Each structure stands twice: as C-alpha cells, then as structure tokens.
C-alpha cells in the first residue's frame, strides 16, 4: 500500500515535471522556426535528408517531415495546417484542390519505369503493347515475344502519385484494368521480383537488379533520357506552400533547390536534379526546351 503510493507520487511528479519543462521550453523547440512538411512518401526521404542538414547548420530550426500521401500533403497545406505540402503531382492535377493560392516549388525530378519479373523474358515493349497489357487486352507474355506465361498486373493504390504519372505518360491517359494494388514502391518491387509474369512500375530509385526494367519503343529508362524528355514517364517532385514563403521557410526551399543539395543528396537518393533538366514541363503537360 505504502509502496504503491510512493511509485504513484514519483510517476505523477515526473510527468508533471516533464510537461512543465516542455511548456517552458516550447519557445526554443517550436516558436517561429518550426516547419512541418507532410505528403508524398516518394519525396519524404529527400526533404528529410535535406531538412537534417539544414537544421544542423541553423540552430533552433526544426523541420518535421511526415508522409501521408500526396492528397494529404496538398489538402493540409491548403487549409494551412502545415507549412509545406509534398506532392508528386501538380496541384492542378489533383481533384478537390484549388491550385490558386498555392505556390509550387519543384525540388527534384523522378523518373518512373515499368518493371517486369525476370522470368517474363522481355526487355522492351512498344508503348502500344504496354497500354494493351495494362488495359488487360494482352494477357500472356508470349503475345509480345516473351515466354508462354500469364501476365500478372500489379498497380499502386488508386490516387497514388506514381500511378497517376504512369497512367498519364506511359498509358497515354488510359485507365489500368482492375488489378491487385499495393501501397508502397518497395512492396511492388519485391512482389514483381518474386511473382512469375508480374509487371508493374516504380521510380528509378526502386528499380534494382531483382527486376527487369522495360524499355519502351527502344528508349532505355535512364536519367540522361529523362533530362531530354526522350523518356517521357517522369514527374516533378513538388513542395507547395500557401502563398509565397517567408523567412526560414523560403530559405529552406532555396536550400533544397541549391546546387549543393541538387548535386549531392538528390542523386544519392535516386532523384534527378532539376538543374540537369534540358526541358521544362508545365502543369498542362506542355513541354518546352529550357
């Protein structure tokens, strides 16, 4: 009886002390220099890595990076709940978002490639074949010069940025046939690697040796081809702010776009630097030479 009282008292005092301490130091931890970035899981590693470097140089700045998906990022930044909304898509492309009032900061480019299981026996397809495969009109690899093996489609979740980009640029806007869906690129890769006849699509950084990258119309999925728009399946990674950013936020976004980050962290994490791009793509899909 007596001991339990002692323990309870210690716990209450400790909790109270901790809360009090947090309350007193909230200014140092938060106060003006705290930024939150929420959204696209594809962009999360870059903002996290750059945020850590930035916070290391600017004492007192704290950058909190979370995933949640493109939709979450855009809607949270639109309501003003977070400072930065990470997105795989132009805000104009996402339904339910009013792009006016949101300011776009393109911080990287990501290339997306179809990947197939190695047993399928194909290394390239024409775009027409790719569309027929994903719309369910071609169901056996034999029909496109591969082995006699049924094709197993695998999609990212409907509404995912990667899927939207793939459907827009690889399938020319066609809807993929109903198929199994997975939530993350890592899972997609491991399933394609282990399921005979499987085909799906991931960002370049996820396409390793366990799967077969698929060339389209003789164009290889490489960084060099993305920078000249020869490989058309790519997208900007956007950080959106509500209105023009000010102070530390603007400084951090400049830092993200700086040569230093674009030449080190960006390629290390498998993204493509925005400075390497020879072309520019608008929200409506129009491509112009820089």
């Amino acid at each position, binding site marked *: 009886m007596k001991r339990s009282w002692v323990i309870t008292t210690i716990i209450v005092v400790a909790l109270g002390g901790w809360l009090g301490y947090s309350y007193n130091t909230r200014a140092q931890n938060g106060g003006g220099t705290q930024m939150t970035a929420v959204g696209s899981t594809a962009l999360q590693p870059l903002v996290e890595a750059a945020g850590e470097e930035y916070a290391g140089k600017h004492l007192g700045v704290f950058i909190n990076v979370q*995933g949640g998906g493109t*939709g979450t990022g855009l*809607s949270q930044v639109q309501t003003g709940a977070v400072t930065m909304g990470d997105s795989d898509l132009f805000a104009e492309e996402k339904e339910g978002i009013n792009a006016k009032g949101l300011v776009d900061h393109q911080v990287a480019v990501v290339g997306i490639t179809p990947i197939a299981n190695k047993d399928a026996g194909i290394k390239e397809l024409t775009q027409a074949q790719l569309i027929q495969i994903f719309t369910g009109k071609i169901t056996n690899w034999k029909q496109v010069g591969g082995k006699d093996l049924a094709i197993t489609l695998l999609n990212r*979740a409907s*509404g995912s940025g990667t899927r939207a980009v793939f459907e827009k640029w690889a399938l020319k806007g066609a*809807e993929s046939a*109903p198929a199994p869906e997975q*939530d993350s690129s890592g*899972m997609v890769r491991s399933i394609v690697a282990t399921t005979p006849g499987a085909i799906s699509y991931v960002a370049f950084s996820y396409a390793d040796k366990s799967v077969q990258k698929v060339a389209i119309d003789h164009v290889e999925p490489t960084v060099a081809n993305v920078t000249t728009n020869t490989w058309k399946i790519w997208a900007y990674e956007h950080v959106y702010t509500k209105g023009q950013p000010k102070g530390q936020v603007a400084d951090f976004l400049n830092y993200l776009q700086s040569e230093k980050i674009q030449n080190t962290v960006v390629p290390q994490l498998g993204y493509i630097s925005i400075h390497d791009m020879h072309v520019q793509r608008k929200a409506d899909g129009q491509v112009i030479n820089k």
Partner: protein
Amino acid sequence: MDEIRESLLKTSIATKKERIGKTLSISALLLIAIVVVSIFYFVASKGLATFFVDKINFWDFMTGKTWNPSVNGANGKPETGALPMIVGSFLITVLSAIIATPFAIGTAVFMTEISPKYGAKILQPVTELLVGIPSVVYGFIGLTVVVPFIRNIFGGSGFGILSGTIVLFVMILPTVTSMTVDTLRSVPQYYRESALAIGATRWQAIYKVILRAATPGILTAVVFGMARAFGEALAVQMVVGNAAIMPGNLISPAATLTSVLTMGIGNTVMGSMQNDVLWTLALILLLMSLVFNIIIRLIGKKGELK
C-alpha cells in the same frame, strides 16, 4: 461537548476519500463515453456526407460492383460500388472463423480437460505468445511464405481470399483459444463429477456435458475472433491483393474494407468525394463492430448460468 458534536457531524476522511474516488472514476467513465460518442459522430458525419452532400445513391453504393471513385461510370456518376469489399471482408472473416474454431476448441479441450498440466505449462504461454506478435509480422510471413505456397499449389498470383484467410486464421486462433479455455475452466467442477459418477467416459463427459455447458462462451469467443478478423487491416492488406473486384474464387485477388481504406486515405483530399466514400467504408466497419458487440452481449445473456 461541542467538539464531539462537531467531529461527529464533520465528514470523515474516509468519506472524503470515497467522494474523491467516486468523482475520479465517474469522470474517467464520462471521458471515455465522450470519446466514443465523438468518434461515432465524426465518422458518421463524414461517412454520411457521401449520400447527403455528394448525392450518391445508397443502394448503388451498397450493391455496385465497380469501385473506382475517381472515375465517372456509364451513368455519369462516380463508380462507388462497395460490394466487392464488403463481400471480401465477410468472406475472409467467416472463413477464418470456420477454420479457427475447431482448432481452438481442440486446443482448449486438451488444455483444460485432457492434460491440464501440460496445458498450463506449455500451451498457455505458446498461445499467449501468438497474441503478442505484431500484425505486420503476420503479414510479412504471409507475403513471403503463404502467398508463394498458394501460388505454387493453386496457380494464379497467390494473392487472394485464401491467403488472407490463412493469415487471419493464425491471427485469431490465440484469441479464440484463450477465451474458450476461460469458458471451459468456468464450467463448474460438479458437472464433470456428476457426469463421471453416472458412468460417462471422459469423452462423453467432454462432448455431452462440458462443451454443451460452455457453448454460449465458445460462441462468444468465436464472435470475438470474427470481430478481430473483420477489423484487421495491415496483415490482410499485404496478402489479399487489394483489387476491388468481386472475388470470383478464393485465389483471385480481392479487397477488404480495411485494405481499401488504409491504401486510399492518404491519397485523397479531405472533404472531397473520394475521401468521403472512404469514410463511408469506415462507418460500415464501425457499425459492424457494433453489431459484433451486440451479438456477443446477446449470446452472453442467453447463456447465463442461473
């Protein structure tokens, strides 16, 4: 004189303590009640917006077979047929409960009636250990062991209702087993003694007396396991395939309410129709767990030992 009078009329320390204790427990209860009510209110207001704000027909939603909220269907309205997921959820739940029940009862009977000593020493910790394994581990084992196994035996991609059922069967087994054990232990000892006294064999005593007496408790355990299976998201999402199409057979990819919900919620914009329909799925899940709770209560009431 006055001093004694005062001390008698004053509230004693014990009374004060009791009052404080009473206030504390009532406020804790109130807080929980408020939380439950606000969860219901929040999910219902979001979920019902589908029908009242976005004007989606209730029957189309419950019986439609195409799920693709971002695309407008043939009738010009978004394709929001939730039937494939509802069917998927129920199929997986019922199948895993059907498979788990005999195993659970067998294990429980062994642990309480046939070999209580080994039961308490070995099986009890083993089943309790199974409860503690996080569902992502079950899902990962399902993905790396069960899915390839199904693929090699039955063909197809390996993702589907069957894989989901197998994973969930293992997940709910410990829950159902430990609850069945409790029920069997609570069957009064004199039931066994009387049965044996009138010449029943051990098997007859178990089958005709103990299991009969424990039936309501066992049913509660099964429903409890089903409630768990119905709400499980992560492990199922990894093995079921997540294709929102009507399950044609047990090995074709399917989807459950939870898997569609967890996959979609981050990719939709709060307040949009695509987001609202996901909340409607959440509302269905919430109502179903309510139904499971009511069933458990009804069984409990009916089977009360008087």
